[in-house]
C-alpha cells in the first residue's frame, strides 16, 4: 500500500494586507494558512489513500509556528505530521528547501508526493519539480485531477492544445492545480484528532543559501478607481475604456 507524502506550506492568508516597514515584511497582524494549492494536494493524497489504502504523511519545513498548518491537515484526515527544521534555517533559499525536503522524503520511504503547484507567498512553483529533480523521480506539474493505480498515478495536465492524461510510475511527485477535486473542510471530530496529534520533528542537511533577500519593497500603489453613475455617463465610460485603459 502506498506511502503517500503531501507537502504543505504555511503562508500569509491570501486576503491579508501585507506591509513593508524598514525594508522588511511586517507580518505581525497577518493570519497564516495552508497555501491554497496545497489544499488540493491534501485532497489528492486523501483520495489516494481512500482508494488504495496506505498512509498519508503531511510534511512541512519550518519552525514550530508551522505546527498549526500541520494540525489543519490532520483535521482533514492525514495520518502523520512531520516537521523538518534545523537551527539557522530562517533564510534558506529554494535550493536549500528542496534539498532538505528531498532528503526527508527519501527517509520517509514515500512512493508518491503531492504538493501545490505554487505557494501563495512566493508563487515560484519550483518546489515540486525541484524535489523530484533531486530525488531523480518522475514528476508532473499543474495536475487538475488524478486517479490512482496499483503502482503509480494518472494525472490530467494542461498542454498547449488542451489536456493530456499522463501515467506516472512510483516513485513520483505530482504538483496539483485547482481542479475538479474540491478540497474537503474539517469537522470537529477532525479538530479533536488534531488536538491529540503529535508533530514529529526531524532534521536534515541543507546547502548554505546562495540567494539572499537584500530588502523588501511594496509593489507600486494602484491608482484609485473611478466611479460613474447613471446611464448618462455611458459615453464617458466608453471613452475612458478606449483612451485611458486601452481595453476596447
Amino acid at each position, binding site marked *: 500500500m502506498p506511502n503517500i507524502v503531501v507537502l504543505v506550506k504555511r503562508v500569509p492568508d491570501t486576503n491579508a494586507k501585507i506591509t513593508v516597514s524598514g525594508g522588511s515584511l511586517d507580518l505581525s497582524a497577518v493570519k497564516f494558512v495552508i497555501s491554497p494549492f496545497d489544499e488540493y494536494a491534501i485532497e489528492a493524497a486523501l483520495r489516494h489513500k481512500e482508494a488504495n489504502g496506505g498512509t498519508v504523511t503531511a510534511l512541512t519545513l519550518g519552525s514550530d509556528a508551522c*505546527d498549526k498548518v500541520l494540525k489543519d491537515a490532520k483535521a482533514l484526515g492525514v495520518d502523520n505530521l512531520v516537521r523538518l527544521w534545523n537551527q539557522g534555517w530562517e533564510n534558506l533559499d529554494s535550493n536549500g528547501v528542496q534539498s532538505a525536503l528531498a532528503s526527508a522524503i527519501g527517509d520517509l520511504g514515500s512512493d508518491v508526493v503531492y504538493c501545490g503547484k505554487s505557494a501563495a507567498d512566493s508563487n515560484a512553483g519550483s518546489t515540486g519539480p525541484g524535489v523530484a529533480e533531486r530525488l531523480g523521480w518522475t514528476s508532473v506539474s499543474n495536475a487538475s485531477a488524478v486517479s490512482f493505480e496499483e503502482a503509480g498515478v494518472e494525472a490530467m495536465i494542461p498542454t498547449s492544445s488542451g489536456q493530456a492524461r499522463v501515467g506516472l510510475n512510483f516513485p513520483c511527485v505530482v504538483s496539483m492545480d485547482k481542479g475538479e477535486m474540491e478540497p474537503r473542510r474539517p469537522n*470537529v471530530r477532525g479538530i479533536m484528532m488534531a488536538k491529540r496529534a503529535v508533530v514529529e520533528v526531524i532534521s536534515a542537511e541543507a546547502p548554505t543559501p546562495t540567494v539572499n533577500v537584500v530588502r523588501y519593497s511594496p509593489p507600486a500603489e494602484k491608482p484609485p478607481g473611478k466611479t460613474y453613475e447613471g446611464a448618462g455617463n455611458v459615453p464617458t465610460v466608453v471613452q475612458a475604456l478606449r483612451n485611458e485603459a486601452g481595453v476596447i
Partner: protein
Amino acid sequence: MTKWNKRGIIIQAPFAAIGEEMNFAETDEHSMIREMVREWAEAELTPTIEHRDANQIAPIEEWAAFAELGLQGITIAEEYGGMPVDDISEAIIIEELARVDASFAVFYCVHVGLCCKTISLHGTEEQKQKYLTQLGADKVGAYSLSEAGAGTDAAALSCKATLSEDGTHYKLNGLKMWVTNGASADIYVLFAKVTGHPDYGVKKHGGVTAFIVEKTFEGFTVGKKEDKLGIRSSDTCTLELNDCIVPVENVLGKVGKGFSIAMNALDNSRIGIAAQALGIAQGAFEAALKFSRERETFGTPIGRHQMITSYLADMATEIECSRMMVYKAAWAKEQHYENGAPRHSLEASMAKLKAGDTAMWVAERAVQIHGGYGFVKEFPVERFFRDAKITQIYEGTQEVQKLVIARNLT
C-alpha cells in the same frame, strides 16, 4: 477565579501567577474551531439570513448542513455519538455564529447548552442512550421553563403533572411560553409541577420536575409562534399541554428536584448567550468599521472624522472587555466541571451582563455610524440592532444578573 472579600476587595486574582501561568494566546484548536465555524457561517448563513429574518423562517435547512461539522454534539459524550469540546470552544462557536446570524446562534445555543447539556448532566443511562444519540445526530432540542406568568419568577410556573393511577405515566397540563426552537425541536426539556409531591402547594417551587418530552407525545401541541422584534429566524412558540402523556421514565433527575436543574441549566447556558451577545457586537462593529472606510463626507472617509474614530475605539474596547469576560466565564465553568472548582455563577452573570449591554450599545453605535443607511435593511446593522436587544432579556434579564452578582458579593 477572582475571589472578592466582603468589602469588595479582590483577595485572589483569576490567574494563579501573573507573568507565569497567565496566557491569553488562543490555542491551535480554538483557532481551528473558530476558522471552521466562521468559514461555514459566512458561506451558509450569510446568503439566507436576510430572507429568513424578514419572513421568520427557522434555519432548519441550514441546521441539516451544519450537522456535517459535528458541532451539534459538543455537550454529548462520545459514547452517545457526541464530540465534546471545552467550554471556551463552545463560546467561540456561538460567538462566530452570532457574528453572522444571531438567530442561528441561539438555535444552537439552546440545543447544546440547555437541552443536551441538561440531559447529559442529569439523565439516566437509558435516557442518554435514547435521547442524546438522537440529539447528537439530527434531532433538535429545546428547553421550556417560562410561562406567561412565570419568567423571572420561574418558580411561579403553573403547568401541572399528575401521576396516572397505574403509576406508568404523568399527564401534563398547562401552557408554556417563549420556547426557543418551539416548532423546530423534536425533544424538549420541560418543567412542570408534580401535584402529588409533598411540597406541592407548600413551597413556592414545590413539586417542580424536569421532563423529557417528545414532540410526538399524545396531548402535546406547538401553539402560537411569536412575531418578534429580533432574532426573527429563531422560532419562539407556545406549547400546549392537554393531558400530555409522559412516561415516568422520562422524568429527568428526581421528582420535585426540577427547580435546581432549571437554575443550574440557566447559569451554564448563560455563558452561551453572553457569547451570542459578543458575536452580535463583533458583527455590528465590523460592519461599522467597513462602512466608516467606504463612506465619504466632506471629501474624507467618515472613519477619519475624529468623533467617528472615537466611537470605533470605544466599541472595540468594550467588545474586547466582553470577550475577556465571556472566555473567562467559560474557563471558570470548565474548571468547575473538570477540576471541581467553585461554581461559575458569578462569572457567568457578569459576562452576560457586560456582553449583553455591550451588544446593545455597540449595535446602536454601529447604526449611528451608518447614518440613514443604518436604519434600512440593506445594511446588516439594522438587524444586529434588533437582534442585540434580546440578549438583555432572556436567560435571566440584566436585572437578574445584577441580583446574582450582588448576592455573590454580600
